[in-house]
């Protein structure tokens, strides 16, 4: 075991062992198709396929792979609106997420600054934020639909937005905004008095104080907020796509559930997990870069 550690292989091997153990449990509880051939009373051969196992309808790892192969190996294929390669679906979902997320940042960061800087603003709006914060995306989406019911917005370069798309973007934005708002506010409140004294003694204008002192001092907190927000934005996309039936990872998942094609649900879950993890890594990479700079 010593030499494994010395070569640094344990960083690769141990996760693999973990994955392998999970696969064993998975195949243990999943069902298998058993095909039996019997002769009926007339002597004809009748084949019957039955699923057996602890959870009979849950496809096992190998079955999932067999059924999902075409989606993974042809990730950019487009056979129909709701039958595309997995990367295409991911891309569709990501574009929506990015739009909602950017709106959340643009709206949330200034809100956070106001909340942190002004006690009056804080007292006025903090209760509202606290009440809106725990509302589930599933609850926001219908409201978004109502809001944009008759809206059809043309954005040059992006094409037309339908009501359901606008509702999805709205839901993502409003759900993923809160970590940014609250973390920014905490960051602003945590700015040491020393820095503010420097700004006061040098009589920096409010704009310059913001750019030179407040924003750099709050940046680490802001980024924590941004990172949490991105996580939530990605979480919300599935719910949004399920309800709107829009093509994307979440929409595909729901459609395949309705089509009784259970392997693809697992494929979607794994894809969502991997993409979410990648996004989180990306944010933490940007964060470390900014901190080093």
């Amino acid at each position, binding site marked *: 075991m010593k030499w494994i550690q010395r070569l640094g292989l344990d960083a690769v091997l141990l996760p693999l062992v973990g994955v392998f153990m999970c696969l064993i449990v998975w195949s243990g509880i999943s069902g298998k198709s058993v095909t039996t051939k019997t002769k009926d009373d007339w002597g004809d051969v009748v084949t019957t396929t039955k699923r057996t196992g602890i959870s009979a309808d849950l496809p096992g790892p190998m079955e999932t792979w067999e059924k999902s192969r075409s989606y993974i190996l042809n990730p950019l294929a487009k056979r129909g609106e709701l039958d595309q390669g997995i990367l295409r679906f991911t891309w569709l979902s990501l574009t929506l997420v990015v739009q909602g997320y950017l709106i959340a940042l643009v709206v949330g960061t200034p809100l956070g600054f106001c909340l942190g800087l002004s006690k009056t603003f804080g007292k006025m709006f903090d209760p509202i934020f606290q009440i809106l914060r725990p509302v589930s995306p599933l609850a926001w989406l219908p409201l978004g639909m109502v809001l944009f019911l008759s809206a059809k917005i043309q954005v040059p370069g992006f094409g037309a937005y339908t009501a359901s798309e606008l509702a999805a973007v709205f839901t993502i934005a409003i759900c993923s905004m809160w970590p940014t708002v609250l973390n920014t506010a905490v960051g602003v409140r945590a700015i040491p008095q020393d820095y503010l004294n420097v700004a*006061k003694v040098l009589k920096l204008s409010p704009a310059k104080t913001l750019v030179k002192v407040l924003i750099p*001092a709050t940046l680490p907190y802001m980024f924590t907020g941004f990172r949490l927000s991105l996580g939530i934005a990605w979480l919300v996309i599935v719910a949004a796509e399920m309800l709107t039936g829009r093509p994307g990872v979440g929409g595909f998942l729901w459609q395949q559930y309705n089509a009784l094609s259970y392997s693809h649900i697992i494929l979607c879950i794994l894809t969502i997990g991997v993409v979410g993890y990648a996004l989180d890594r990306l944010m933490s990479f940007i964060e470390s870069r900014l901190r080093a700079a």
Partner: protein
Amino acid sequence: MPWTGLCRLSNLGYAPLNIMAFIELDHVDKGFGPVWNRSEVLSDLNLQVERGEFVALIGYSGSGKTTLMSLLAGLLRPDRGEVRIGGKVVDGPGYDRAVVFQNYSLLPWLTVAENVALAVDEVFRDFSREQRQEHVAKYVGMVNLTPAMDKRPSELSGGMRQRVSVARALATQPDILLLDEPLSALDALTRANLQDEINRICQEEKKTVILITNDPDEAILLADRVIPISAGPKATLGASIPVNVPRPRTRKDINSCPIFKRTRNQVIQYLVQSSSGKKVEISKKLTMPDLLPEDLSVARPMFGGKARPRRRSEQKRETVEVVS
């Protein structure tokens, strides 16, 4: 002369002539907190400082030294009385004063040059870019930090950070330099070095300086006049003690100088007297050990039970009364 007119007036029996000092504190009171829980920090402060003078204010920690500095810097307003500089009532920070704070107060995301430039850009708006850069370089050079121009504060030692802070203050070319315990966070050797450096710069620049400190030696080494602050609460200023040690003063000479010793005794005597009889309440958190020992007089039960060492996770507040 603007005040000859006043002279004539006073000869006629009007208000007595009062040639105003450069910096004046006039019956200044300052306290904090709401009425029901008020702590009066400073009471009835009077101070006159002439242009070009180096005054050291010395007092115990907690006697409101930093509050006094904030009043002079314009970060705080007095409750009663007036702070006047050059005859005008101070109603906010201004470029005629520069402050060196106790804990450096450098912005950690800016380099040394940028920290100084932040002040320079703000004060000398009509300078060209090159002039400003030159100006920054000059003052960074004055505190001997030219090699560290592009370093961030986190890469510097405490003494170097404080020098940057001094450079930032000097670069605004203020009339008055306010030094708020600038050296108290440093180790003894760095402290001595920086004292010499401040001494040199102040002699070169000929500014009006107010130094706040808790070190009598430092005060006497640097200042023309030492003013003790009585122990708080309701701290006030004592009679000023002139330092008649001739300049240039060096640390070596000063230790054997009889005037230095006498002045030092005077200062310390005042400080000790002012604090005698005052009770200082210190409230501090005492963290108790986190384990309760097992009670051995109780027979240990077979399964479970309570007779085992337990965690307490308790913090106890205790008020200690110190009478000096």
